[in-house]
């Protein structure tokens, strides 16, 4: 759309856009007093326009944030730019029924009749928040089911490591393994990496750290399921495994584990 087309729109049409665009819009003066809001904001938050006009913008903010907001608002006016409100912070607006709605807000300023107006646009992000929550729960569940600790033999545990091993998962794996080891008094812990998606220096580092921890607690760590691909990568990366016992198949690892218990 070019500029000349926009100029042909009637003021009524432009005003309808302002009222109905699916984004909440608040216009305040430089003292934070609400001068107008669009219809969409009123409908979604449950207010009448007349209830909002003339109020301080803090009227829409939960009480615990109000005081801090006045300072933030004044700081913004010293250096007004187009930006997101509350970078990395969780923002909430109060609806008519008293509930707190998670929002995302953007700020901009326009000079109108020689006075500065602050334009605030609000998006309701409760659906996104709900989705994030579900995603996180699902992720946690995935982590939990993806690193089971199996008792293979008297005091021998097998931990199949499947998929990817990032820092967060490695941390959880370490905690679970050590706690379980202390509880069940596992003497040998076999880490089976048959299902490991890929190995790089960071994955190798996580694995080594885990075997180191198992050793410090007095257990024996064995890595099994070393495929030709992984063996080649480990050598090429120059990772030093020390005297760590590794084996290509799980069955050989179990044999070795049982033998090491009997030798003692």
């Amino acid at each position, binding site marked *: 759309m070019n500029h000349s087309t926009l100029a042909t729109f009637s003021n009524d049409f432009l005003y309808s856009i302002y009222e109905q665009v699916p984004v909440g819009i608040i216009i305040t003066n430089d003292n934070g007093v609400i001068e107008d809001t669009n219809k969409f904001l009123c409908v979604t938050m449950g207010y009448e326009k007349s209830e909002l006009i003339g109020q301080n913008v803090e009227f829409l903010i939960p009480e615990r944030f109000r005081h801090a907001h006045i300072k933030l608002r004044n700081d913004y006016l010293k250096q007004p730019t187009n930006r997101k409100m509350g970078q990395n912070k969780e923002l909430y607006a109060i609806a008519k029924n008293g509930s707190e709605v998670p929002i995302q807000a953007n700020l901009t300023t326009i000079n109108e009749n020689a006075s500065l107006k602050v334009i605030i646009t609000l998006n309701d992000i409760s659906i996104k928040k709900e989705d994030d929550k579900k995603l996180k729960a699902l992720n946690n569940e995935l982590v939990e089911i993806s690193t089971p600790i199996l008792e293979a033999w008297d005091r021998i545990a097998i931990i199949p490591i499947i998929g990817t091993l990032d820092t967060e998962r490695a941390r959880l794996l370490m905690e679970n393994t*050590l*706690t379980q*080891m*202390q509880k069940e008094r596992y*003497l040998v812990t076999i880490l089976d990496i048959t299902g490991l998606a890929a190995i790089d220096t960071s994955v190798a580092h996580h694995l080594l750290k885990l075997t180191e921890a198992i050793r*410090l607690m*007095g*257990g024996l760590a064995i890595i099994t399921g070393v495929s030709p691909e992984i063996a080649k990568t480990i050598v090429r990366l120059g990772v030093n495994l020390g005297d760590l016992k590794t084996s290509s198949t799980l069955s050989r690892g179990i044999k070795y584990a049982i033998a090491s218990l009997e030798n003692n």
Partner: protein
Amino acid sequence: MKYIQVLKLGPILFLTIPENLNDALAQSLEEALLEQQALTKADAIVIDISSLEIIDSFMARVISETANASSLMDAKVIIVGMSPVATITLLELGMRMEHIETALDLEAALDKLGYALVKTKKTIHPLDSLTEPNKK
């Protein structure tokens, strides 16, 4: 007052690290152990650290120095009972204690030293003596 108790069982010395390990106590810990070791000519030392919920770099140094000193005096040293939290902290501090032998618990440590509990005499429960004659 003596806080550090070094127990002797055959050629093995047992040392339990107390929960409230401070600088002064740590000093006497090393002394008490080495003294006993010289006195008893022990072959092996088992240091139990299970009372330490957490471990800091100072404690880690004390333990590893004590273990090294004992090794120099020709004893096999085994650290037992490191907790998961202590283990993770040690690794985070970058202290790998590579040269130190560890065991899960006292039993596993004895196992590593080549000892096992063997019952030599049949112990009779007081109540058993009442019922046994009837059985015969």
